[in-house]
């Protein structure tokens, strides 16, 4: 399945249905058993030639999005983010709202009408609205009742030198590479878990980890690259173009030391472009896996992603390839 197809599906936390359906259909012919678990995760199992080891690769299906709370008397939708979206990236953006995917925009007070104070102040979600053209509250809520979701209306576009810009690259890059891993043949048993609700607290992975039988978990993620705009070198935790990012720790987990070293050595041996994440920002599903049951060893392999959690996140495709290459090399090395 194309990365473009996966990115252009809408699936905020709690509403991953479209992604789940696509992933389920793509995974079915590639594995021995595939099922949907109690948290809505898609668990795809592939029996290995020896089955001496069992590796679980995980990526999350959900993306950040918006949820509708109410509407104003003149028909503007009141909304909040699902997952962390800096309100500063929502101003003047295109959205699709409700089940009918109605086209809309997030408008804000025109510059001419702002006071000097307004110009400095960040517009919070109390002052932002989705405009779908509705004239009244009733009309707006008939189409988008409270609890409906809205998404950035944001196409996947290649640009620059081997880069793409899209919404939801975090973590459809991971889903994309999980599906590719299922195409291989391995000695070890392999589970690919496409999990839900990462963006609202690693909730899907917590359920998946409880049922998992694996001895090792590798999480495939998209991670923040804040490298552009004259950021000092010391503050750039990773950079697009330098390969897959291996984390020694983040805010949710500490990588298993031997696994971490094994992955770095493997990258060197197989000439997979690889960079160590030079910081411990962020957190992801590895935290849920690591502390499940009696504990599981984990490590995170990420694709550096600029402007993450926005309508226009950017990755370099060579890094997506590097993530796949290193995960595959690890799966093949497990005897």
């Amino acid at each position, binding site marked *: 399945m194309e990365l473009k197809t996966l990115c252009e599906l809408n699936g905020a936390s709690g509403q991953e249905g479209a992604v789940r359906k696509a992933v389920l259909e793509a995974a079915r012919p590639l594995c021995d058993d595939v099922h949907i678990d109690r948290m809505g995760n898609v668990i795809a199992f592939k029996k290995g030639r020896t089955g001496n080891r069992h590796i679980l690769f995980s990526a999350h299906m959900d993306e950040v999005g918006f949820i509708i709370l109410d509407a104003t008397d003149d028909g503007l939708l009141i909304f909040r983010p699902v997952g962390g979206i800096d309100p500063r990236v929502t101003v*003047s953006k295109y959205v699709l709202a409700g089940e009918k995917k109605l086209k809309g*925009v997030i408008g804000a007070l025109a510059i001419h009408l702002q006071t000097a104070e307004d110009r400095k102040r960040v517009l919070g979600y109390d002052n932002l609205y989705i405009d779908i053209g509705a004239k009244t509250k009733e009309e707006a809520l008939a189409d988008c009742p409270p609890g409906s979701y809205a998404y950035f209306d944001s196409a996947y576009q290649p640009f620059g030198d081997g880069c793409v810009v899209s919404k939801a690259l975090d973590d459809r890059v991971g889903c994309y590479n999980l599906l590719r891993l299922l195409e291989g043949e391995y000695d070890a048993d392999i589970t690919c878990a496409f999990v839900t609700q990462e963006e609202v607290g690693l909730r899907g992975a917590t359920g998946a980890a409880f049922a998992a039988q694996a001895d090792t978990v590798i999480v495939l993620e998209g991670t923040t690259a804040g490298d552009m705009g004259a950021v000092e070198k010391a503050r750039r935790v990773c950079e697009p173009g330098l390969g897959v990012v291996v984390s020694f720790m983040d805010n949710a987990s500490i990588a298993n030391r031997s696994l971490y070293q094994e992955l770095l050595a493997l990258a060197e041996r197989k000439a997979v472009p690889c960079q160590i994440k030079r910081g411990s920002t962020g957190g992801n599903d590895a935290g849920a896996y690591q502390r499940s049951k009696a504990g599981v060893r984990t490590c995170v392999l990420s694709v550096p992603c600029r402007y993450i959690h926005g309508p226009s996140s950017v990755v370099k495709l060579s890094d997506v390839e590097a993530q796949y290459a290193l995960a595959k090399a690890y799966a093949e090395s497990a005897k």
Partner: protein
Amino acid sequence: MKIEDFLREVTAIPGVTGNEGAAADYIADAFRPYADEVRVTPLNCVVARQKGEGPKVLICAHLDEIGMMVSRIEEDGSLRLQSVGGVDPRVLPGMRVRVYAREGMLLGVVGATPPHLLKEADRKNNYNWDTLFVDLGMDAEQVRQKVRLGDTVCFEARYVEMKNDRVATKTADDRACVAIMLEAARRLRQMAHQADLYFVATCQEEIGSYGALISGFALEPDMGVAFDVCHAETPGAPRNSTSKITSLVTSKGPFLNSFLVKKLEETAKENGIELQFAVDPRYTSTDADELSVTRAGVPTVLLSLPIKYMHTNVETLDMHALKEGGRLLAHYLAAIQGSWEDELWN
């Protein structure tokens, strides 16, 4: 050509102030079927004439748009921008922009220093021209080969059709009003009119109405009809500065000729067209300000189309109001008589 199709196409064309050539050529072609003569002036104003024996009337709406220019290329290849006209930098983070470089258009993404790298105090502030940049997805060396300082940068352009005939697009300010002029010109082809009509799509409004200034000088009109957008109601907007999105607005005030305003009001009534009123005690901040004092003076009336979210890529208008605006303008221009000139100051 359907007016919706014109608006969709014309708003997609880049035409940042000072760089309006492509927009001017497109607009000139659109007026050709309805005009006796059409020309593009050296500064990229479009002048389309419908001949008449009566008073010479200049009708204008501006074709230029706000945008940006590349002001610096950083060591890492990111571009810093400077505003051309009043761009609100709050709308930029996460926007896909178009950089018009030597060898063609490059897609760029507006990025900003991520929150975790900002100082605590800066997290509470909006991003500004110092913290925003354009990422072209290539290394610095490639960027330097392709991009030069001063290259034009344009907003993302999409034409979003919403409920109730509402449309969100870049450059509704002011090409929606150019569309109203075109609609009026189309209607006037089937109507009798005394006035000698000059429809002018003006350049360089966003930095000071220079297109109206030079067009007024060149054409020496007897009367002027200036067209621009005004603010439609949105949350947080002061009531006195906004109008309903559903119909055109005309302004009253010292810069605007009260006889011409009265005639406009009568035309709207006679033809059953909704018209709102606004009050501008001094500047209108439109082409009307310059036009009305060009040469020995041009008695001028101002018509405005209310839009939401002005000076963004999602300027939102009501298509019904736009079409009715075309009808109103056509009837108004057809009503102009030579005798009006004697009554202008009565």
